[in-house]
Structures are given as C-alpha cells and as structure tokens.
C-alpha cells in the first residue's frame, strides 16, 4: 500500500497525493526516508528539501521547518512555509535573503536578530532547493537525448 502524503501550511494545502517513498530533513539527524509500514513518528523538520517519490516520478518541495507525523502510512507535514521547487522564484528569494541580511546587521535586540537569521536561513534553503531542482531537470533532459 502506498503512502498518503499531505503537506499543509497556514496559507493552505501545498501537496496531497500518494507516494512510494518520502525523504525529509529532520532537525537533528538530517535526511531520513519513510517507506510504507513505517512506525508512528512525530518529528521536527529543519529547513530543507522534501522528496516525494512515486514510481519514476519525483516531486521536490521546499519546507521551511515544521512538523512531520507518520501514522498508519499517512504522512502529515505541518510546515511553517512550503513551496513546490518548480514554483520558487530564485531572484525573489535572493532579494529576501539580502534584505534580511541588512536588517539583521541593523538589529539590536537579540530576538530580532534571531528572527532575521531564521529568515536568512529560510531564503538560503529556498534557493538551495531551487538549484537542486534545476540541476535535476537538466540531468533528466540530457539523459533523454
């Protein structure tokens, strides 16, 4: 039986569908995979990519931290922020990163610095996932030829 995957954010549902394997980025252990029949799990997610494999197809999604729950072959991701890799606007993400960098340098309160630092890491992660997607689709087109 395949996995059922739901990715939710406060702004709505980002992904819903089935998968044979899901790879996510955990906060302490890095990348980990989930196959059908996985034990019930609640995990903290770090900023990073989430791969959803279904037969030969693979969806790549950027997740900006959040929670992942596995129960009875259903994976629910509650993301602080999430976006399909193909939809990421790299220029906009780069812009956001630069702006947060400047804000961070001007910030005086610890809490503000922490917020801008998180923003920098989120934007950087977004750009990384977009690059990952670009590299992958280029490889695919060159292997098709």
């Amino acid at each position, binding site marked *: 039986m395949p996995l059922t995957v739901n990715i939710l954010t*406060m702004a*709505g549902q980002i992904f819903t569908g089935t998968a044979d394997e899901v790879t996510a980025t955990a*906060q302490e252990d890095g990348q980990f995979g989930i196959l059908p029949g996985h034990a*019930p*799990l*609640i995990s903290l997610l770090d900023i990073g990519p989430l791969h959803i494999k279904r037969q030969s197809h693979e969806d790549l999604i950027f997740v900006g931290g959040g929670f992942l729950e596995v129960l009875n072959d259903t994976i629910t991701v*509650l993301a*602080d922020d999430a976006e399909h890799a193909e939809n990421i606007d790299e220029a906009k993400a780069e812009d956001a990163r630069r702006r947060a960098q400047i804000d961070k340098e001007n910030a005086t309160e610890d*809490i503000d610095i922490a917020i801008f630092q998180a923003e920098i890491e989120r934007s950087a992660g977004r750009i990384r996932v977009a690059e990952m997607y670009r590299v992958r689709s280029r490889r695919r087109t060159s292997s098709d030829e």
Partner: protein
Amino acid sequence: MATAREIKRRIRSVRNVSQITRALQMVASTKMRRAQERVQQSRPYADELRVLLARLAKVSAEADDPRDDEPDADKRLLQARPVKHVGIALVTPDRGLSGSLTPNTIRYTLGLMNDLQKEYGIAREDFRFIAVGKRGRDFVLRTHLQLLAEFTSLGDVPSSGDIRGIARAVSDAFIDQSVDEWVLVYPKYINPAIQRPSHLKLLPVTAPEGVADEKQTDYFYEPSPAAIFSALLPRYLETLILQPALETVASFYSAQYVAMKNATDNAKDLIDTLTLTYNKARQAAITNQILEVVAGSGDNE
C-alpha cells in the same frame, strides 16, 4: 413646496452617494470571497496542529517530573493560576462602514467583562487589553481601559511576522504574571449574512477536547517529546490568533457588503420618491403658468 430645481439638486446628490456605496459594495463582495477562502485554507493546518498538540500534551504530562521546580517558559504557558488580571485581545476591523459589526463586538466585550468580573471577583481596572485593529483600540482608549499594546493596519492578509508579534506580547504578559488569563474576542464569521462576536481562551493553554479519549498510539519522537512540544506551543498560539484575525477580515467585508447594499437600495428608493416629488412640483408649476395665461387672456376680452 420646494422648487423643482432644489429637488433636482437633491436627486443628483443622492445619486452620487449611491454610486459610491455601490462601488464599495462590489469591492467588498470580491474581498469577502477572497477572505473567506483564506479562512478555509488555513483551517486544515490549524485543525491538525490542534490534534498534534493534544496528543503531545498527554505525553508530556505523563513525562512530567514533579521534582522539576524550575519549569521552562513553555511549561509555564500551560499552568493555570488564580486569576487576578484578565487580558483581552480584542480583534476588530481597522475601518468602519460595516454596519453594526464593531458596536456588536464591543457590546459583547463589555458583557464578557461583566461575566468575568463576577466569576473571578475582579474589578474593571484588572483588565488588560491588546488591541488588534483600530476600532477596538479606539474603544479601549475612549473608555480608559488599560492598553498593553496595539497592532493596527494588519491588512487583509495578516503577515506571520505580525501574528508572531501579537503572540509574543500575549505570552510575555502571561509569563511575567501581569496577566493570569488571556481571552481573545473577535467577530466570528458564520456566513456572509451572519457574523457573531465570540471569544476563545488563549492562555493558559488547555489541551483541545475530542482527542483526549482516543486510543493512545506509541509514537517515536524525533528528537524528543519536550523539544517538539516547545516548538509546537508558539505555533499553536499563533494559529489561535491568526484564525480569528482572518475571520475578522471576512466578517468585516461581509458586513460592509450588506451595509453598502442596504445603503444603495435606500438611495434608490429615495431617488424614486424624489423623482415623483419633482414631477409633481413641475406639473404644479406648469398648471400655475397655464392658469396665469388663461386668467391674463380673460382680462383682455
């Protein structure tokens, strides 16, 4: 009787007003639909988060070490204590032209304050307010209640940064004990015709009901229940604030739509009545003129 020209001027001014109210009505109807969508889109996330929190609250309550006499900040958000000061986060629209939406919300707040005063035996001075939206802030200032903080001009889509700021102000006041219980008052969105002022409890966090009696599943926790719990709590508080904030936007545009539709309809009725009066006045003037002409021609014979 007013002259035909005066009536004509009034008709023109009423027509101008009705054009404005009709434009506002159409804008409100589009924005209402979009706000409604946003409320619905954020619901699955909020519901799932609630379920997750309830499960974790149970686990972390069991894992609670009674010898731990220096509880960390997250644990403190869960602890109920005798209530001496009540905080009210009052969520209202920034703007008016929305019929009785704001007055109803404020009347509801006053009623709630009365109930809480009786329940906890506290006075009017023991309330602390955080105003989200200008209308509520104006009310708090006008009635000389204590305002801790105000968050205005959040726009139609409150940003996560704004919401985080409100959540921080709320939990800070709870942790430094200046407020012992937080409630949030907002105009709940039922449907385009009905908005009902309601309140919900923000702090101390109480595990949502409904999950309590479900069969316990043995989860693996990565890295640990405590770490997940302390990441989850602020998110939970933020959704408790975001959801009402989104509903307030939807309520505002629905109320504005209805108010503007009524105003447009009234203007149309008024124009009809005035047109009738105008025609009568015109007819009377013509009749008068004819009479004068007839009378004048009679003299010449």
